[in-house]
């Protein structure tokens, strides 16, 4: 089973830009871009929590098992 990051979908739904979101959750735009493309080994619970807060969603809205 593979985990796919649906962050770009949620960002589009919330109409939020990468730069704005990165600043809001305290990570670099580069890391956010890596996260969106799924080119990271993992995501910390802390980052996931901040993303969910910023996007007003649940972890399952960002991560999906396919």
């Amino acid at each position, binding site marked *: 089973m593979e985990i796919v990051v649906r962050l770009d979908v949620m960002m589009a739904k919330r109409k939020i830009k990468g730069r704005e979101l990165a600043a809001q959750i305290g*990570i670099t735009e580069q*890391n*956010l871009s*890596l*996260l969106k493309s799924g080119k*990271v*080994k*993992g*995501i*910390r619970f802390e*980052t996931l929590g901040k993303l969910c807060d910023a996007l007003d969603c649940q972890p399952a809205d960002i991560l999906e098992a396919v």
Partner: protein
Amino acid sequence: MTEQRLPRIAMGLQLLATCALVLLPLAILWAIAVPSMAMFQLPTFSEVPRSDWSLVTWIGLMVGFLPAVFFWLAVNKMRSLFALYRLGDPLAPDAGPLIKSIGGNLMIGAILIIAVVPVQSLLMSLGNPVGQRSISISLNSSTIGFILVAGLLSLIGWSMSEATKIAAENREFV
């Protein structure tokens, strides 16, 4: 604070290691040229008049410098380690293997210090008539301490290698 001090201290130590790398071979050459110099513990050799030195005596002298080769290698690795620390990243991927290598070289050097004494005594007395040849073994507290420090460094290097692997993996987490 530590991050600021690390490169500064590392720079000083790198300079010291570079000096040691140059001075150690020069000191060995000096000791070969003037074996009576008190800076090297070569009383056995200094007692034998230079005119009486045979090929075996020279080989015995050279064998005595074998540990220094490994100490030189260890200092060389130390220099690389300090150069790495100058960049301010103590968890750089190369740090662990370098510390492990320093420990390994020091360990070989320390073991050779113990092994060299019997070989030297045998070589020195090889030309003696039967019954007057001898072999001696010497072990002192400083050599044991040296082996312990070398072993400790190897273990620290090992754990540092693991730590750098974890740090590298951590960097891939967002």
